[in-house]
């Protein structure tokens, strides 16, 4: 279906994640930007649990070994199918032997390549996501390599491509619809702003540190990947040393190791850790975090439980509306 032509370092097969196994010590994995993956599946009419390819390093090149529709979402990568540009957040029909080149993103950090029908890899513990630490799931439990051939699940093509559809169609990115978030003091427009809940050890930090946590921008250091982002900024000091037993953590948790430089645990994080937690990035904003590039800056906005739930509802409404719109568009050209 597609053959990987580039040295595809760190590209992995991901779906919406492996839920329900944290208690057994199995992390969730799954797409860093679940919104981008979900929208890509919508564009193609795929099942919601279909897997795609998460691409964090560029350029990334593949050759189609069969005719198939694909979608690109996430970072704007000035992609090309042969010589023709492919827009971000777009779906298009590829022909056998077409080469898709996904370039270095102008904005954002991760691009998602989805195939009609979804990537066909075995379901392990309820998910097709690559579990890198455990070396299972996804494509042979590992990141993709040059020469790998990835198959899509075969689907009956109810949607026959006509000449008029050759240019494909797309949607506006979620950042356009959902907008940025306000901060005080005002953030640099290039900063990624995410909402954060105070976590269990929040009160254990010095007042100065807490104020700095909300006020300052935090650099995404090169030690940042699917496991977590190590941030650089003012040193966060606790009132007294905090020693804890290992306890369960989830993606989004912001830990503070003894260095005082926070770590945001992400999709490939271990399900337990012993560092104190100053906050948690809310689930509804993890997609924003996923698109923050190394070297860029983050800002945290304090939120509460009710607002965090509302934010998830807002995301749900956005997806429902998109599903309706895309369904109408795909449906009216049967």
């Amino acid at each position, binding site marked *: 279906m597609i053959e990987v032509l580039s040295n595809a370092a760190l590209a992995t097969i991901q779906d919406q994640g492996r839920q329900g196994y944290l208690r057994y010590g199995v992390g969730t994995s799954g797409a860093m930007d679940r919104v981008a993956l979900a929208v890509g599946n919508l564009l193609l009419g795929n099942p919601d649990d279909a897997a795609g390819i998460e691409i964090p390093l560029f350029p990334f090149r593949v050759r189609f070994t069969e005719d198939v529709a694909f979608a690109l979402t996430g970072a*704007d990568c000035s992609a090309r199918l042969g010589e*023709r*540009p492919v*827009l*971000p*957040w*777009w779906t298009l029909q590829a022909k056998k032997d077409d080469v898709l080149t996904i370039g270095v993103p*102008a*904005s954002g950090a991760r691009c998602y390549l989805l195939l009609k029908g979804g990537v066909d890899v075995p379901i392990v513990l309820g998910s097709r996501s690559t579990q890198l630490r455990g070396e299972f799931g996804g494509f042979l439990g590992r990141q993709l390599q040059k020469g790998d051939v990835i198959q899509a699940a075969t689907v009956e093509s109810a949607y026959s491509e*006509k*000449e*008029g*559809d*050759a*240019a*494909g*169609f*797309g*949607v*506006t*990115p979620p*950042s*356009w*619809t959902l907008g940025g978030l306000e901060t005080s003091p005002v953030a640099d427009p290039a900063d990624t702003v995410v909402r954060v809940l105070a976590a269990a050890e929040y009160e254990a930090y010095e007042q100065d540190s807490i104020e700095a946590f909300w006020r300052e921008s935090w650099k995404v250091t090169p030690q940042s990947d699917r496991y977590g982002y190590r941030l650089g900024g003012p040193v966060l000091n606790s009132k007294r040393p905090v020693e804890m037993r290992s306890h369960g953590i989830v993606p989004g948790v912001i830990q503070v190791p003894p260095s005082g430089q926070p770590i945001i645990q992400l999709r490939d994080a271990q399900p337990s850790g012993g560092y104190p937690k100053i906050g948690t990035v809310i689930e509804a904003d993890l997609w924003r975090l996923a698109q923050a590039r190394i070297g860029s800056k983050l800002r945290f906005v304090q939120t509460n439980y009710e607002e965090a739930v509302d934010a998830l509802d807002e995301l749900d409404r956005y997806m429902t*509306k*998109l599903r309706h*719109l*895309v369904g109408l*568009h795909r449906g009216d*050209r049967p």
Partner: protein
Amino acid sequence: MTQGNELQISELKQITGWLETAGIGFIEIGGKGTVVRLTLEGQTLGGKSAVNPQAAPSVQETQVIAVSPGVLLTCHPMRSTPFVEPGAAVRQGDVLGLLRIAQLCLPVVAPCDGVVVKWLVEPGATVGYGTALMTLAPVRHL
């Protein structure tokens, strides 16, 4: 189709031409117990058909026609540079702009090779089916 006048075949052709450029499969015209239904069969929606049948071949310019209603975007929402600038050479099938319907983005596609003359509609304007969006000049003329 004025009352009392016979419908001319040329008018039917004009209507079917409009339907085709607008990507509409059929139209029903009703009144006083009569319904006339025109159905396009084996139509080729969009694509090459997005050439305005009214474009005068004598001036050798092609109008790019909206095949959907929507808000005209001359830049992608993630970008600040336009898809094309006046004077740019484009190939048939190139995306010249977008028509946005809520969050959905449909491409405005070049119906033929040509050179961009100008947009006929302001960016951000809401356009209807069949609106002339852009003029393309033949490549050899510039």
